[in-house]
């Protein structure tokens, strides 16, 4: 069920009054649990059983870890949880890629092997809920969270519909205490929640789908046939599309959770004003980057090891982060590029002070350089193949070919420039801080614009949220 669908509107219109009407926190939680499973089942009913199975397994493993008396027993149980979660993820997400890659490998040595067709539908949001669930067993293992939660509370944590299919990856240590303690949203939370939802939908439907996506789709279909201006418009537009698509979804999720009285963490903090790549990853898909940092990078030794190991760990984490997005080596390439950027950035920090370096560090040069490199790194992320990506790069710098700007491209480029300027201006503040400072008339105008434009762009084909596929 997409947040920008009529079905979700009907779903929310039924669930939300019921949530208010039901007496007692216990009944409200039961309603949210049933509603969350219904929300997931709306896509493919049998696949709700996969979440249920994953929930049961991790709940039981965490309970046993909590009771285990020896460290080795705890470690064995944690390994079991890792195998079950990552095994599930690998089977559904990477099975086809694994057999195809194996067949390609054999072909290089002259062995022809026809890989079987997996023909398996990838469960929506599996990457998000397995990571959320894994955070629980790891935190229990590390002694950072208790293991005696009620099963129904744990099941609601895993399946709570605002974050279920595309994040943010909310950790058990963060959401379970909120679920356990009775809460009722106040009018202020509902007002903010609905504002976030309206703005999130505006980002997704108006900006991502209608301003940026058409320019991106047109260009990436046949990049070799497009001139340099079209190429830059397409590449810059993808930076806009993916940002507004995913941050819009995250904002909707945060807003919906707030309507029910739950706090979700921010997932984006003006990433296109990042000063370097480590800063970028503190601002982009924060729930994933912090997950990878806390559960993978630190487990690999973090910054406590030698330089070479740090570089290796950075690369490994970014490659895994890339592959998390999908079963394609193009995502690995994207992750690898970011790993490389992070390594270079870290190495540069160790260089002795010089005039050149201090000039290069003057604002806004590092921010603009980061933005441009991030934008170029999105090319393998969006491209369908290595050839497609090479063709995109080729078009970007083919200044000899004529390239006449089209209105849609000009609008997208202006929207992207405004976005970057907006990120620079609000780099160290939050949406709620900015919105709070506006006069009520301007706040009303902003929400009215969101509602009216959502109406204007309603009724066409809905594009699935890009991050659903991950």
């Amino acid at each position, binding site marked *: 069920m997409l947040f920008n669908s009529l079905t979700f509107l009907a779903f929310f219109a039924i669930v939300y009054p019921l949530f208010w009407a039901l007496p007692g926190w216990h009944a409200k939680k039961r309603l949210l649990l049933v509603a969350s499973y219904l929300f997931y089942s709306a*896509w493919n009913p049998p696949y709700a059983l996969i979440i249920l199975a994953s929930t049961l397994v991790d709940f039981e493993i965490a309970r046993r870890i909590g009771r285990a008396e020896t460290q080795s027993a705890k470690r064995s149980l944690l390994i079991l949880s890792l195998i079950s979660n990552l095994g599930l993820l690998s089977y559904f997400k990477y099975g086809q890629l694994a057999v195809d890659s194996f067949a390609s490998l054999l072909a290089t040595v002259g062995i022809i092997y026809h890989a079987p067709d997996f023909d398996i539908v990838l469960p929506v949001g599996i990457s998000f809920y397995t990571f959320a669930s894994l955070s629980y067993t790891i935190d229990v293992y590390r002694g950072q969270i208790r293991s005696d939660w009620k099963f129904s509370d744990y099941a609601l944590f895993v399946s709570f519909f605002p974050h279920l299919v595309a994040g943010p990856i909310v950790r058990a240590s963060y959401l379970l205490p909120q679920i356990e303690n009775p809460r009722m949203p106040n009018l202020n939370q509902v007002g903010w929640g609905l504002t976030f939802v309206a703005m999130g939908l505006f980002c997704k439907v108006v900006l991502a789908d209608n301003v940026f996506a058409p320019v991106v789709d047109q260009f990436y279909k046949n990049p070799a046939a497009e001139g340099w201006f079209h190429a830059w418009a397409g590449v810059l537009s993808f930076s806009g599309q993916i940002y507004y698509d995913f941050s819009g979804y995250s904002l909707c999720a945060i807003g919906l959770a707030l309507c029910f009285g739950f706090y979700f963490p921010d997932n984006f903090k003006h990433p296109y004003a990042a000063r370097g790549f480590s800063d970028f990853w503190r601002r982009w898909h924060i729930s994933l980057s912090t997950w990878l940092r806390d559960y993978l990078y630190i487990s690999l030794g973090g910054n406590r090891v030698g330089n070479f190991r740090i570089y290796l760990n950075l690369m490994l984490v970014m490659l895994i982060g890339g592959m998390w997005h999908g079963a394609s080596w193009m995502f690995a390439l994207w992750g690898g590029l970011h790993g490389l950027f992070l390594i270079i950035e870290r190495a540069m920090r160790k260089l002795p002070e010089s005039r050149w370096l201090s000039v290069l560090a003057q604002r806004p040069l590092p921010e603009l350089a980061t933005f441009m490199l991030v934008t170029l790194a999105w090319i393998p992320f969006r491209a369908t193949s290595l050839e497609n990506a090479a063709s995109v790069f080729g078009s970007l710098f083919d200044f000899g070919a004529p390239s006449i700007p089209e209105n849609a491209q000009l609008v997208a480029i202006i929207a992207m420039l405004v976005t970057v300027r907006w990120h620079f201006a609000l780099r160290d503040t939050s949406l709620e801080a900015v919105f709070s400072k506006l006069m*009520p008339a301007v706040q009303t105008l902003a929400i009215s614009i969101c509602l009216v434009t959502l109406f204007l762009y309603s009724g066409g084909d809905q594009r699935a949220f890009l991050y659903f596929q991950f």
Partner: protein
Amino acid sequence: MPSSTSSFKRELAEQPWALIFGAAVAVFACFAGGMELQLARLGYQPTVSIGKDHWVAERIRANELGSRALVIIGASRIQLGLDLGVLRANTGLEPVQLAIDASLPYPVLAGLAQDPAFKGTVIVDYYPQTTEYEGGPGADFHKSFEAEAAKTYAFPTGSTVEKYLTRLLHENLRVYSDGANPWLSLRYRIMEARPQNQYLITMADRSRKADYRKVKMPEFYHNRVARTLGIQIDAGGGNIESLLRQKINEQMPLANSGVWQRKVSEMRKQVEAIRARGGRVLFIGMPSSGMVREIEERRYPKAQYWDYFEQNIGAPALHSNYTPILQDFVCPDGSHLDMRNRAAFTENLVRILKANRFL
């Protein structure tokens, strides 16, 4: 402790939300209601959504009807030209309109031929000039039908509910009429200096009715001719008629390539597959008039194209332009019948099909 997400607390300053949302919803209601009222004033009516979902539902119905199904495939000419009520009354069969605007019939015909569950009669709206091309919306629609037919469970999913709600909305609001969205309605129907009239209505059975009294002639006709020629014109400008005439005079017969003949023999196999299951296939050339007809006849001379097709397709084929009781129907835009002629045309068509024992 994991550092970033375990101690998050959002600072939310108090705002006058009742006032803000009350006013925002009022603005939205005024805007949406105002658009709806303005479209009503301009004479627009809500219409059925004619997208993929509706087509897939009708395609499923075609299978459910068994040998009673009278499936119509093709493009806008047959979608506007046949009256399904007249067909039903005069044939005893249940018509299923599967024509898709601006599409080719081949993927749909191929799908029907490959589908063992389909056992009905097919009327194909056929044009020799399109046979060299493949795919189009028909292939996409058919793929969706196959996905829907392959579903193993019958309980409603979110997609079923979404289709129902979308249909409900589209069939009751003018801003969505004729498949538009509110933005297109605003841009082309309300803000346009010379707003287009709603001359085309889509019926619940997927057939469409065109009222050419509502369009501005001869500009509309000239635009259609230009579209057939593949050129762009300023329909309001002068000397359009002579420019179009000059372009038409340049039209030469197109080469009858082997690709086209292979396509005909491929279609013949599809016809045989449907016949083998007890079904029937008829090919109908819908009428064209004036300059559009002239362009078609210059590019695709009857002897070279239609006659070859008729002799080699292995099924009844009848072209309205060359059939006495059908050839006098005039298409106001050169390409489509007006709603006032569709019943009479359908009656004559059925009469001649029956007289030849094609039906």
